[in-house]
């Protein structure tokens, strides 16, 4: 019971300061949670994790010291069940406990390691689906992230006897709460984790935690800004400007990793773990050794402890320079292998690509060179006044080289990368401007950052550098960027960029232009994500026909693929995913039709891709069927008493394929109206189709199209065994008896160059053929249910030039209902309700066309 004196005694100034600090941190965390929810930042698990961290922080303030680590563990377990559910959560804890139990077995280190390797091998078999794993696919990345390195570090630290292996500390280490939000996680050493606990002033620790969380949020939003607006695909790289944009943006995608790491370690600070920074101004490194020490610092420490020192001390008798060089080389070799090891656990395969080896090899060589120079020099003495130009220029050079190397790491093949580099020869204004701005920015920023501290020691500067001030300013800036009022007063271009970072939306371009960087792909299977299914994203990524899907037939003509005729699925048992799917004897997802048109009947043929085919709905639920029913019940006019709307939709068909199909069989049915469909991604998608036509040496029956292929060297494309870029290099290789092939990147880039001309020609041909057959041609702009509908109709100039009328249904799905009108978050095709929406709109737009036809004399 409090004494009266205590009740009335005012809190002293340090207590008041402490209370203010706690309240400020709680207010900041609340705002951060709001920001994460508003922007839908990163993985869906981030918001619950931050909310739990906020609750945990408050509990920590009031809990006695002895209960704080157990409370962190209990909170982490709550997070596991909250995010993964009871079943998967229980499996995660059970498998984790088993591995922890092995780490703590009361036997010698040798036997513990042996049992751990055995357990790892068993899990590896499950990871490659060589056995049944009772937990869901989504659990693997987090399970892997928690246990792929930590047992190694835990056993190493505890067996030396240097650090205590208490039960709660162990559980806290393995089941860290922030790990639930990120599958990519810093490699935290157990010894550092344990020794960092409450190693500093409590207020200093949590203020730094809040600062790092807010910094992480800023990194993730910058990442989204780049991803949504600036990242381009290797096949789009044509000039120096495109190349600089690709290289810089690909490297800057690492902001996602640094953002996630900052948040992860920031959250741990809230619970008293005063761990070091994970990344420190790595974009402004003034050399490669400097960058190796600034970027993913935990990895550098891990490698230094586990590989560098043990190797060096074993061979130091051969001399310090040679021993250091060899040890550094071994570090980079192990880093390469462990990145593949990490890939294996997160994604399920073990890639050993030549360009990965080259990336780590060249980076290793550059670091060794830097290390040898450092060994022979004294430490840099900072000048007491002025900015150091030498530091700035070195930073710009380092940034340029790392962007160059990073692009090698990020493209699918070495030959494709070499082909892409040839774009540097096409110097353009964009390239010069981008290069100048990038280098000047890095130079000046690094000079400012590395300037002597007296340069920015004004009172205002000192205050602005305080962690609570920096974190508050960051959070407020992010909140202001979200306000519509702010977007209203900035220039439209800036407002559009600000809008693009508001939420990670499904948009067609991002699904086609997928960057292929190492970390991007590891992050693609984020924590708590759904497993990949047969969604559209997967189809866009790969041209191979889906496994176990017997709906398709490959064809050795311009169609390339089509629907198999006379299907009745899933009755035939080879397609088990969704609703009934059947085709007629012509390979159309429609009822049977005779080629001869019945009397008094108007025929409308609709060509298009998966949306027209009705991917995501039943046979009876396609918009084509719905429009046909409504026309027959409501639209009879003139001599037309019946309507037949015919579905010629085939998954992923481009305009050129639609034309080929119309020519091949569409006109056999004497159509009165022919509709071609154009999608928002048509311009990005068609090059892939053209490159496949070229790769498969498809005979092109249309002379103008054939000329385009010949002009770009896409006829008789080399299909040898060695990918070699540039025709002149391949020619030389043939002289040496090699069998060269054109690299995929070159093939795609060449295809991209003729893609627009080829499609423009197809529109004109469509108009001509329709006129020749007395049919009314129409262009239907229709897409799947993206969060952001395409703004412009691709090829509109060519469509207009061909005199084709357009029905624009890009915005047919009401914005508020879009998530309810698609199959799922991963399959953005319209579902049955979505098809009703399309049918209603299309019916209304078709009525004037039907009326015009009715006004015409007699049916064909």
């Amino acid at each position, binding site marked *: 019971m409090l004494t009266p004196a205590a009740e009335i005694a005012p809190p002293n100034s340090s207590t008041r300061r402490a209370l203010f600090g706690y309240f400020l941190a709680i207010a900041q965390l609340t705002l951060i949670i709001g920001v994460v929810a508003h922007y839908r930042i990163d993985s869906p698990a981030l918001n619950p994790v931050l909310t739990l961290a906020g609750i945990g922080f408050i509990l920590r303030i009031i809990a006695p010291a002895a209960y704080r680590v157990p409370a962190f563990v209990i909170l982490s377990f709550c997070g596991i069940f909250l995010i993964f559910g009871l079943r998967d959560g229980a499996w995660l804890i059970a498998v984790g406990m088993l591995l922890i139990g092995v780490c703590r077995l009361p036997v010698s280190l040798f036997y513990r390691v042996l049992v751990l390797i055995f357990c790892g091998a068993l899990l590896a078999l499950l990871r490659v689906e060589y056995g049944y794993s009772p937990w869901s696919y989504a659990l693997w990345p987090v399970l892997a992230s928690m246990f792929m390195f930590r047992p190694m570090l835990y056993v190493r630290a505890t067996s*030396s006897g240097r650090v205590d292996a208490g039960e709660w500390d162990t559980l806290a280490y393995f089941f860290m709460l922030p790990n639930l939000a990120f599958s990519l996680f810093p490699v935290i050493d157990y*010894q550092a984790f344990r020794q960092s606990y409450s190693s500093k002033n409590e207020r200093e620790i949590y203020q730094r935690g809040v600062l790092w969380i807010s910094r992480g949020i800023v990194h993730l939003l910058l990442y989204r800004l780049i991803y949504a607006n600036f990242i381009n695909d290797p096949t789009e790289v044509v000039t120096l400007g495109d190349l600089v944009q690709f290289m810089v943006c690909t490297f800057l995608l690492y902001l996602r990793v640094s953002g996630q790491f900052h948040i992860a370690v920031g959250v741990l600070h809230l619970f008293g773990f005063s761990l070091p920074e994970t990344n420190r101004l790595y974009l402004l490194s003034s050399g490669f050794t400097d960058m190796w020490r600034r970027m993913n610092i935990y990895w550098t420490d891990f490698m230094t402890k586990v590989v560098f020192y043990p190797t*060096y001390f074993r061979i130091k008798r051969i001399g*310090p320079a040679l021993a250091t060089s060899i040890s550094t080389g071994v570090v980079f070799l192990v880093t390469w292998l462990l990145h593949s090891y990490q890939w294996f656990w997160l994604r399920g395969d073990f890639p050993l690509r030549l360009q990965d080896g080259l990336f780590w090899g060249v980076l290793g060589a550059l670091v060794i060179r830097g290390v040898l120079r450092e060994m022979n020099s004294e430490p840099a003495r*900072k000048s007491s006044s002025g900015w150091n130009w030498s530091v700035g220029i070195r930073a710009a050079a380092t940034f340029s080289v790392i962007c160059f190397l990073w692009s090698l790491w990020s493209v699918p093949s070495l030959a494709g990368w070499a082909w892409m580099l040839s774009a540097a020869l096409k110097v353009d204004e964009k390239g010069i401007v981008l290069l100048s701005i990038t280098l000047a920015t890095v130079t000046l920023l690094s000079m400012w950052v590395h300037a002597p501290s007296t340069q920015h020691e004004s009172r205002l500067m000192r205050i602005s550098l305080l962690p609570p001030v920096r974190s508050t300013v960051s959070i407020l800036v992010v909140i202001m960027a979200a306000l519509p009022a702010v977007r209203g007063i900035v220039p439209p271009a800036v407002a559009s960029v600000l809008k693009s970072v508001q939420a990670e939306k499904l948009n067609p371009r991002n699904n086609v232009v997928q960057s292929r960087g190492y970390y991007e792909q590891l992050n693609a299977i984020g924590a708590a994500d759904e497993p990949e299914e047969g969604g559209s994203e997967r189809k866009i990524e790969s041209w191979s026909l889906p496994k176990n899907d017997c709906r398709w037939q490959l064809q050795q003509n311009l169609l390339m693929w089509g629907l198999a005729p006379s299907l009745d699925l899933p009755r035939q048992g080879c397609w088990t995913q969704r609703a009934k799917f059947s085709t007629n004897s012509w390979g159309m997802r429609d009822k049977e039709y005779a080629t001869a048109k019945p009397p008094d009947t108007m025929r409308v043929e609709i060509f298009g891709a998966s949306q027209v085919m009705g991917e995501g709905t039943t046979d009876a639920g396609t918009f084509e069927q719905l429009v046909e029913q409504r026309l027959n019940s409501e639209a009879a006019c003139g001599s037309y008493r019946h309507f037949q709307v015919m579905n010629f939709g085939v998954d992923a068909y481009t305009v050129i394929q639609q034309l080929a199909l119309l020519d091949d069989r569409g006109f056999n049915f004497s159509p009165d109206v022919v509709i071609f469909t154009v999608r928002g991604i048509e311009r990005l998608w068609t090059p892939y189709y053209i490159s496949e036509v070229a790769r498969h040496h498809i005979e092109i029956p249309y002379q103008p199209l054939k000329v385009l292929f010949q002009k770009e060297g896409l006829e008789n494309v080399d299909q040898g065994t060695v990918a070699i870029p540039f025709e002149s290099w391949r020619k030389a290789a043939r002289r040496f008896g090699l069998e060269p092939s054109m690299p995929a990147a070159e093939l795609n880039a060449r295809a991209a160059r003729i893609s627009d001309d080829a499609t423009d020609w197809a529109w004109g041909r469509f108009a001509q053929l329709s006129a020749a057959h007395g049919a009314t041609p129409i262009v239907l702009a229709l897409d799947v249910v993206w969060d952001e509908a395409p703004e412009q109709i691709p090829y509109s100039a060519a469509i207009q030039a061909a005199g084709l009328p357009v029905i624009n249904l890009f915005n047919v799905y009401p914005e508020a209902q879009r998530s309810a009108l698609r199959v799922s978050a991963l399959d953005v095709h319209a579902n049955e309700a979505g098809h009703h929406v399309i049918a209603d709109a299309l019916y209304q737009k078709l009525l004037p066309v039907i009326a015009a036809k009715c006004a015409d004399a007699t049916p064909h």
Partner: protein
Amino acid sequence: MNDIKQTVRRYIVEHLSSADEAKGIADDTDLKESGILESLSTLKLVSFLEKTFNIEIQADDIDAGDLSSLARIETLVKARTNMKL
């Protein structure tokens, strides 16, 4: 033997730290956290200690944090030289 810390401090100030870092290295200053020691400078320090005090240092010593401050270095050097005696 009494001036181990002084000898090591002098070496650090002259060979390993920049002017800013060299200011106020106390006996218990964490040399890694203060940015004075990283992997390469640690090896330089190891080489210096081995030559100056005629001792042998292993990777485990670094791992154990025996080079983390002037005070810990002194303890390590004393322990190794006593072992020899």
